[in-house]
């Protein structure tokens, strides 16, 4: 048959990342494989055991994220969790959940932006309606980011924003505008 090969394209191609302005930086982050996990009814305990046995941790409670050896589980919607993991761990958890949960590959559907720096709160205040004083490490939120439905995970000096792939350019453009605005206001 045919000898054709496809090349992979970065979701943030042409977005000029990383970008730094004032005291804030924005960059793309590789989350590895992204997998959606939706346990079937009555399988909560079975899923917990299977995940514990396969990747060493269970699904976190609503609105929270947990991490173990580079693999992260976080709540994403009612009855729905996402996993960030490398290929090997993803294969393990996918196999372990066979027949217990609806599992789907979301690796190409979402992109992760990382915002960091001392002025990150001021930038986020212009993009997202969350109260970041009430949003400590370990929490996760489905929220709006510049009119884009996203998942937001706080970090030590900023946060990660998971946006649908199609919004990559829009998200980066409006975030860099907010960064420039905050930087300009700091000089007033």
């Amino acid at each position, binding site marked *: 048959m045919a000898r054709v090969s496809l090349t992979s394209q970065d979701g943030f191609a042409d977005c000029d990342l990383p970008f730094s302005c004032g005291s804030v930086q924005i960059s793309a982050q590789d989350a590895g494989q992204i997998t959606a996990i939706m346990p079937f009814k009555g399988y909560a305990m079975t899923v917990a055991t299977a995940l514990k046995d396969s990747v060493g941790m269970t699904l976190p409670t609503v609105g929270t994220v947990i991490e173990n050896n580079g693999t992260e589980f976080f709540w994403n919607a009612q009855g729905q969790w996402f996993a960030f993991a490398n290929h090997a761990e993803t294969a393990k958890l996918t196999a372990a959940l066979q027949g217990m949960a*609806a599992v789907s590959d979301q690796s190409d559907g979402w992109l992760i932006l990382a915002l960091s720096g001392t002025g990150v709160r001021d930038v986020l205040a212009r993009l997202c309606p969350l109260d970041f004083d009430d949003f400590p490490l370990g929490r996760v939120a489905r929220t709006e980011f510049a009119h884009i439905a996203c998942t937001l995970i706080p970090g030590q000096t900023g946060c990660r924003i998971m946006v649908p792939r199609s919004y990559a350019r829009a998200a980066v453009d409006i975030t860099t505008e907010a960064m420039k605005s905050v930087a300009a206001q700091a000089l007033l």
Partner: protein
Amino acid sequence: MKRLSTGGQIDQNVNVPFTFDGKKYTAHPGDTVASALLANGVRVMGRSFKYHRPRGVLTAGSDEPNALIEVGLGADCTPNTRATVQEVYAGLTCKSQNCWPHVKFDLMAVTGLMSAFLGAGFYYKTFMWPRKFWVKVYEPIIRRAAGLGNLSGLPDPAVYDKAWAYCDLLVIGAGPAGLMAALQAGKAGIKVVLADEDFIAGGRVNGECDIVGGLSGGDWAAKTLAELTAMPNVQVMLRTTVTGAYDGGTYGALQRVTDHLAQSNGAPQQTFWRIVAKHTILASGALERPIAFPNNDRPGIMLASAMRTYLHRYGIAPGKRVVIFSNNDDGVRTARDLIDAGIEIAAFVDTRGHITPNLSCPVLTGSQVINTSGRLGLKSVSVRREDGTVTRISADYLAVAGGWNPAVHLSSHMGKKPEWRKDIAGFIPTKNAIPNMTYAGAVTGDYTTQTVLVAGIEAAQSVLKKLGIKAARIKPPEAENRPINIAPFWHVDAKGPAWLDFQNDVTVKDIKQAHAENFRSVEHMKRYTTLGMATDQGKTSNIGALAVMAELTGQSIPETGTTMFRPPYSPVQIGALGGRNVGRHYMPNRLTPADEFARKHRADWVEAGLWQRASLFKQRSETRWRQSCDREVLMVRNSVGITDVTSLGKIDVQGPDAAVFLDRIYANTMSSLKIGKVRYGLMLREDGMVMDDGTVARLADTHYLVTTTTGAAGQVMRHLEFCSQCLWPELDVHFISVTEQWAQFAVAGPKAREVLNGVLSNGIDNESLPYMSCAGDNIDGVTVRLFRISFSGERGYEIAVPARYGLSLMQTLVERAQALGGGAYGLEALNVLRIEKGFLTHAEIDGRMTLDNLGFGRMLAKKDCIGKVLSQRDGLNGPDREHLIGLKPVGVVKQIVQGAVMVNVGDVATAEGLQGHVSSACFSPTLGHVIALGFVKNGRERMGEQIIAADLTSGVETLCEITSTVFVDPDGGRLRG
């Protein structure tokens, strides 16, 4: 007026040049345009709305009704800016508005001569007849004569931010009460936002000469502000007007970020904040009100508090000879301050007969100002004394002290009206009018600085108590404690126009007219006279007007009541509400993974929801869109075309009850679908109308993939969630969007299979992948999904690949297609292809059609589904309803316009004779003429009949024949082959 050599909170060592009405002036840092113009001897700053009367400054704050100016030039021009708020910066250019040719000589002032005819209700009575004159004659004349500033007509080049803030306590107003509240709360460690519309803190104390805590009021405020600014838990927001109170402790606030600067250097002009506060202290202070007397609007007549502010804050000597007219002790205070500043008081006039103020100037108690003179500025004041004699006194300024109105506005934004407090003759906020809002200071009617300072501390303490925080009570500074001793007096009974609403030119006579015509409710009076409906929202006029109405009706003022205070507290530019979401950021654009391919290949674009989709791929020789579209259509019909269909919704449905769930969602049965097969489906809304169409592919026993239209993807997902969570929570089914995960492309045309077999590792034939089936394959190890479906009527496939490979796959497929005489096609050609084949889009599924109307009546399965029962209501189906049909022109006119209405031949296009409408129309390059899809009453039984498609907008009427909806390949041979 002139600038004093010392005093005030301005830096007289620095000169700031600016231009007003083309003339250059000098200001100093700390000046507003109003203070700077006054200091330069300018009294006339604008013209009134209706009568074009010359007007000067009335106030020293955001309540200013008169001194409205246009700031900036060209596209940068901002009209209706209050000169009392706008800070001067070097190079500022501003001008007076609503006057021509000049503010001092305004030809439109001729309207003032007609004032006897232009009173309340004038428009309603006068311009009724003839009716068609309204739009072309009356309205242009009125619009030219009346109005405020001019818009440039150009896009606003300024940028605006929108932002969110959260706090435990929002303090609105940084006057003495607000400062003390913020200080008390800040010291307790809670998160505080302190907002004030002014550019310095202190509020009223800046305009007085009182000592606060051993310092001048301004110095005390600056010291306190510095203390607050140093607290990490306190966010001080000056130049920030809290504009509205909304649900959930949310407040709108407009921050003027660079309005006061010559250059913004990348910062926004303004930021509109949504501040969410657990508790709020309203310390908005009070606004002084005027007294209505004949010709009380001349330049040189201003509120007494404003005159003191210009004296103490801006270091301006108000005039050479000043008259004071008051009904409370603020008049006495004003007289003393002016005398101390060495200004001659021509007369102190007070309506109260019983007072004996100790003033070194002529004192006329029990007296009233009954008229004034001076065309472009006050020249004299006529005073009627207690004994009835009238004295004319020459003066260039008149200070009016009519008492104070607490700034209750924000407390009323959720519908609660304020309550009357008799001793101050003013309205104060009703308790619990806004959840978790408390009041402190002058807004409650306590006007002495000492009580206000204490009230700020008390309010903060009450909030801290509610938050469960114990904090040491801070000590208030020492300050004055003199009551104002008001004897309410609203308007002088004398002949001549006595203005209540300066901005909308409403006089006492207008209120009397409204009363005479039975517009006695304050809400009716307001709308009939337009009182309080200008940009100042009647801050200086509302209470005076309702006092007059109360007098006329014989009711008390509280019985008469106030009109409703609504957001915003002061004007907000629309640009600030739009924030960054203008121009290219009007909405977030969604781009498909193959977006770059389309851009490189000269695509035209069309928006589909938020998605940007390629509509055409123009070749260099093509100058009109139809050339490209026709070529692409024939390319698909004759060889092969590739188009990007990634934007269509894809929903992964899994779970033991997936089949049951989909049976209940779709009108047709999905549980009988075999693994590896695809079925077209229609889902209904609960009311029986068709919601959306798409395909369902069964990937495994408990695993389906549902596709939706691009525009309805969100709606369908929401519908599925609702059905799952609320209607049938017992079903074990789970779904998630995979729209973004997979890039998907349609490969359509007789050579489609050749293209695919050129790229797939395993390959396909008609037996392995027959029409309406699905399969997996790979391209050099990359997983792909194949669907044998067609939206063109040709042999068609859709191939899906993980999104990161989308661009590469699109390029590869198009290269292969080009080698076979094909290429890429866009949404225009896709639309023509589907009309030729009679396939539906939301032009047909427009929310008003049942399955039967669309010709899918037999699709409704025996099992139950959402919308089944209501779709069979009487009158929704059958011959009386419109049916989907095809149309082709058979007369001289060959054009059919989408949106045209259907009328029987010989009938006129009226609502009664309406037979249906054209939903989709195009030129079919395959057939060589225009074709259309549309709806006609009982259309399926009228095949071959002639009917008129009448486009009421363009006037095009086309004689058409009703045909089948399938124009191309009616037996489906090309589709299945």
